[in-house]
């Protein structure tokens, strides 16, 4: 546990990506199975304990620490795990904590009723850094700025294998990944993972640079489609149950049984997960209701039925067709869908266009009339290449909508930003009154954040816990993808994907936007 705690601390504090990679490879090399496998699971977020939840930890702590003082501390620190590690009042004889594997087993096998006592004992025994690591691993929220991909990249570096080879089989592996390490160390074959649980790293697009790219690209070489406002998924169909992967290779089928239980055939498909009845996509907000949940409620299944709008095919049956050009894959996809008509899969249509001017007009009208996010532009001869290859696929997003809104409230951020007022609620004028229309916490630079934080502290009118109401004087140019009717906001309007486009230090608040102006955006979607 000591080595793991040191690794976590280094990962949290070292800004250099290379040093993080170095530390990870060194750890995986030096640590025996199964400890390193459990570490890998924790680092990639794959480890969950059935009975150890943040609520249990909070309970353990508030038995020993006054809840009000705990609350003040949490508000200050901004990270639950770190608050618990720092506030724990008992410091026993420091003994080494069990090895990672033994610790995981303890947390998994200890009966629920005895867990609080076990956790309390471990917290008391641990030195401060191990206590921090222990709480982090028990809550499952590391928040140390490490992506699962970096951990996999370290495995790739350690073994000399391409990271895609690891990603492909990742989902079929089980903790503590002994077979994986055996293969990576050249002591055995690559683990044989069933085709149905194999994830195929996705092909991603690059944003189009209108000034540079359009001139160089020849329209007849390209095909266009709408850019759908859902989430990118990969559906793997075969003998067993279907797998539904997010773009990071996480299996999310459990939350979408209405989709995965109602598809058939054998293929690997790439497309957009959407919700809505009769293949009519509902706004992203509706899909949001179903994301980040492990299971779907009955109400969700009827109110927001899921479907997948397919735009590419990676495997036709068992045949890997990724090397084929897009036109051929598209033809295969159309044929396959025609012979396997489905209630939960439909085809993303191709948009005919003669030149870039025509496509630009389509894109503008699609945004204005149907709220489309933009268009995708794909090279007809492109093979399906994992990663973000240059020159093959492009996204051409709609121009953002913008509104000038007045800062009303600021709230302290969490984690890295816990001492900054970094979450901003802003509003527009309804007569002489400001009504909130949204909240944003990005779009500005670190230097601007400091200025904003300063401004908030100097212009506070009232404080409510972590929230400060500020003088209604600062104007933000807020960009957003679309606006929707909302019963939850006093203004009756909710913004999709709002971000601070510019801080208008120069603009008087009285000249900010009005609610009437917002109606135009609502009607467009």
């Amino acid at each position, binding site marked *: 546990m000591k080595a793991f705690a040191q690794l976590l601390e280094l990962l949290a504090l070292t800004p250099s990506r290379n040093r993080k990679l170095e530390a990870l490879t060194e750890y995986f090399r030096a640590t025996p199975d199964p400890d390193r496998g459990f570490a890998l699971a924790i680092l990639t977020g794959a480890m969950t304990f059935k009975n150890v939840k943040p609520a249990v930890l909070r309970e353990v702590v508030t038995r020993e620490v*006054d809840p009000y003082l705990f609350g003040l501390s949490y508000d200050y620190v901004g990270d639950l795990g770190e608050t618990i590690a720092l506030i724990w009042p008992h410091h026993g004889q420091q003994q080494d904590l069990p090895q990672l594997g033994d610790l995981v087993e303890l947390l998994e096998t200890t009966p629920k009723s005895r867990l609080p006592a076990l956790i309390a004992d471990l917290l008391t025994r641990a030195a401060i850094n191990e206590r921090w690591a222990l709480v982090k691993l028990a809550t499952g929220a590391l928040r140390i700025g490490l992506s699962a991909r970096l951990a996999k990249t370290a495995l790739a570096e350690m073994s000399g294998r391409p990271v895609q080879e690891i990603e492909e089989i990742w989902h079929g592996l089980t903790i503590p990944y002994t077979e994986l390490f055996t293969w990576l160390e050249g002591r055995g074959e690559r683990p044989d993972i069933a085709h149905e649980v194999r994830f195929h790293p996705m092909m991603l697009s690059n944003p189009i640079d209108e000034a540079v790219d359009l001139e160089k690209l020849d329209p007849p070489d390209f095909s266009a489609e709408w850019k759908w406002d859902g989430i990118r998924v990969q559906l793997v169909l075969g003998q067993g149950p279907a797998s539904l992967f997010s773009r990071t290779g996480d299996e999310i089928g459990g939350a979408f049984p209405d989709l995965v239980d109602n598809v058939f055939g054998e293929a690997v498909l790439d497309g957009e997960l959407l919700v809505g009845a009769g293949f009519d996509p509902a706004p992203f907000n509706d899909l949001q209701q179903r994301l980040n949940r492990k299971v779907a409620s009955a109400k969700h299944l009827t109110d927001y039925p899921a479907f997948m709008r397919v735009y590419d095919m990676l495997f036709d049956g068992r045949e890997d067709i990724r090397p084929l050009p897009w036109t051929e894959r598209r033809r295969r996809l159309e044929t396959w869908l025609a012979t396997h008509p489905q209630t939960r899969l439909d085809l993303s249509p191709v948009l005919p266009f003669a030149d870039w001017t025509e496509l630009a007009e389509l894109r503008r009208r699609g945004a204005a009339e149907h709220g489309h996010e933009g268009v995708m532009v794909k090279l007809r001869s492109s093979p399906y290449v994992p990663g973000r290859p240059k020159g093959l696929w492009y996204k051409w997003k709609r121009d953002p909508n913008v509104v000038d809104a007045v800062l009303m409230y600021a709230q302290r951020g969490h984690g890295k930003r816990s001492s900054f007022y970094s979450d901003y609620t802003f509003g527009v004028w309804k007569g002489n009154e400001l009504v909130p229309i949204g909240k944003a916490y990005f779009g500005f630079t670190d230097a601007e954040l400091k200025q904003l934080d300063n401004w908030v502290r100097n212009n506070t009118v009232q404080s409510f816990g972590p929230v400060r109401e500020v003088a209604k004087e600062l104007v933000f140019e807020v960009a957003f993808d679309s606006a929707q009717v909302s019963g939850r906001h006093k203004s009756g309007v909710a913004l999709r994907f709002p971000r601070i486009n510019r801080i208008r230090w120069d603009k008087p608040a009285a000249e900010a936007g009005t609610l009437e102006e917002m109606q135009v955006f609502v009607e467009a979607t």
Partner: protein
Amino acid sequence: MSFIDRHLRILPIDVYVDPVGPQDRAIITHGHGDHARRDHGHVLATPDTIAIMQARYGEDSAGSFQALDYGVPLMIDEVEVTLFPAGHILGSAQVRLRYRGETVVVTGDYKRLADPTAQPFELVQCNTLVTEATFGLPVFQHPRPADEIARLLKSVAASPGRSHLIGAYALGKAQRVMSLLRASGYDRPIYLHGAMVELTRLYENRGIALGPTKLALEASKAELEGQIVIAPPGALKDRWSRRLADPVLAVASGWMSVKQRARQGGVELPLVISDHADWNELRVTIAETGAADVWVTHGREDALVYWCHQQGLAASPLNIVGYDEAGEGGE
């Protein structure tokens, strides 16, 4: 009603303790900028504090300076003023005030841990205690400084090609870190940013040995490899630090216990070394002074006031605008 008001003005004699703006007469607890301001008419403080103020602000930064040694009572009309060591930095003092049978103690900033660079804290009994609360939250439980220095030295040994750049406040913290390093047996020269040279010399002239030092600006990049450099926190990312060889950024401060906070500052090696009382010390001190009324100033007042109430003590926050709220400077 006490004989001292919420701005720490001693009413019968019209003298302020650590006033945030110029006053005719001021008692100064210690030399940090948020407590010791310039342009007062008359300043009463320990000899060390006066030396520090004169070094930082100039000989004429107050109309007159009057030195008062620790433990020597001074009568000003009917008020008896006595200074006691606060253990915060060189010359730091608590102020005990007695008037018609009532005793008030203003702690200024303090810590109770042994520190060869500051006169050791003395506990003073009182009826009313005005305490600092910089680390007045139960998450602040400072580790042993020797352990923090051991982590630093381990890191130095493990990365011979890199410099270790330590952010430490130029007055007090820098000298404390140097003293801790010497106590751990580190005898190589310590490289200093120009801003801390004069104060370090002042400490040495007043009898605190800190070992060999060099000016970082005069050293070549190659010479600084594997060495320890100390600079004010505000100067860590200045242009001068580019001359350092791939530096490990360290900051010595009580705030560094919060890793998210260290991350936010890009600090690779947080050293939890504080010159303030932590939550446990604050509570023990309040209890031991025997005070029945506690005024809590600059810091996280809410938690400490709440705790005092739980102990059956009268307590209230003192919202004196002008003390370093975030504490970054004074630490």
